[in-house]
């Protein structure tokens, strides 16, 4: 299953709904291009919804880290929403779970962004 990304706006937060596999190649490129496009348009509050992400490899993890630092370096915030158990476990063993601000409820995640 290839990766898909669609964006929507909610209370000043850009929510990116991701589905499929974030792996080396197409999945990572789609995520990278989506983040660059949003940052280029001035989005500073980005919420990545990973609820339908079925698989992620080390390249995908790297792309999430890159997205996090790219947004932060522009003075923005990036948070993660709805991790599956597999993605959650992967972020735990790579010690990235504490780096990212991870939420499991969309409304809570949106309200957690700096006003």
């Amino acid at each position, binding site marked *: 299953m290839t990766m898909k990304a669609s964006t929507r706006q909610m209370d000043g937060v850009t929510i990116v709904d991701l589905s499929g596999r974030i792996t080396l*190649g197409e999945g990572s490129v789609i995520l990278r291009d989506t983040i660059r496009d949003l940052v280029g348009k001035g989005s500073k509050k980005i919420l990545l919804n990973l609820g339908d992400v079925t698989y992620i490899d080390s390249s995908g993890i790297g792309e999430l880290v890159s997205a996090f630092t790219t947004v932060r370096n522009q003075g923005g915030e990036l948070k993660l929403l709805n991790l599956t158990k597999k993605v959650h476990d992967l972020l735990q063993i790579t010690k990235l779970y504490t780096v990212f601000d991870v939420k499991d409820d969309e409304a809570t995640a949106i309200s957690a962004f700096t006003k």
Partner: protein
Amino acid sequence: MTGNRVSYTLESTLESVNKAEELSSQLAAQAGFGEDECQKISMAVREAAVNAVLHGNAYDPKKKMTVSYENTGGELVIRVADQGKGLDVSHIPDPLAPENLLKQSGRGIFLMRAFMDEVRFRTLDPGSEVTLIKKVAAGAPADTKEASK
């Protein structure tokens, strides 16, 4: 049959990485591993295959990746070899070190070690080979078909 080895010679492409991952999942299931373990094994193989194709062979169409699977009865042994310039694992930074946490790359070998019981590296001439070993649970079937593709 126990001990038989299946070997695949694959192009240096992302499609080959996906194929190695799929084969690993199928063969791990045949070896009796559960869904979670199958995913861990196939992910470790994916990381090894990415290293072989990307860092080893650098997508060179003249260079091949070889992936072999062997169920010894007690262990599932998977070897991924490339024909690149070799890999010095002694100089790979710890991805869990605070200064490396936000680096984009460098987690592949860490994940292989996290998901497998044993990971060994060997220098070839030319290239390198990683051996990924997972112990087969007692009572699980030991069955990989003999083939060469």
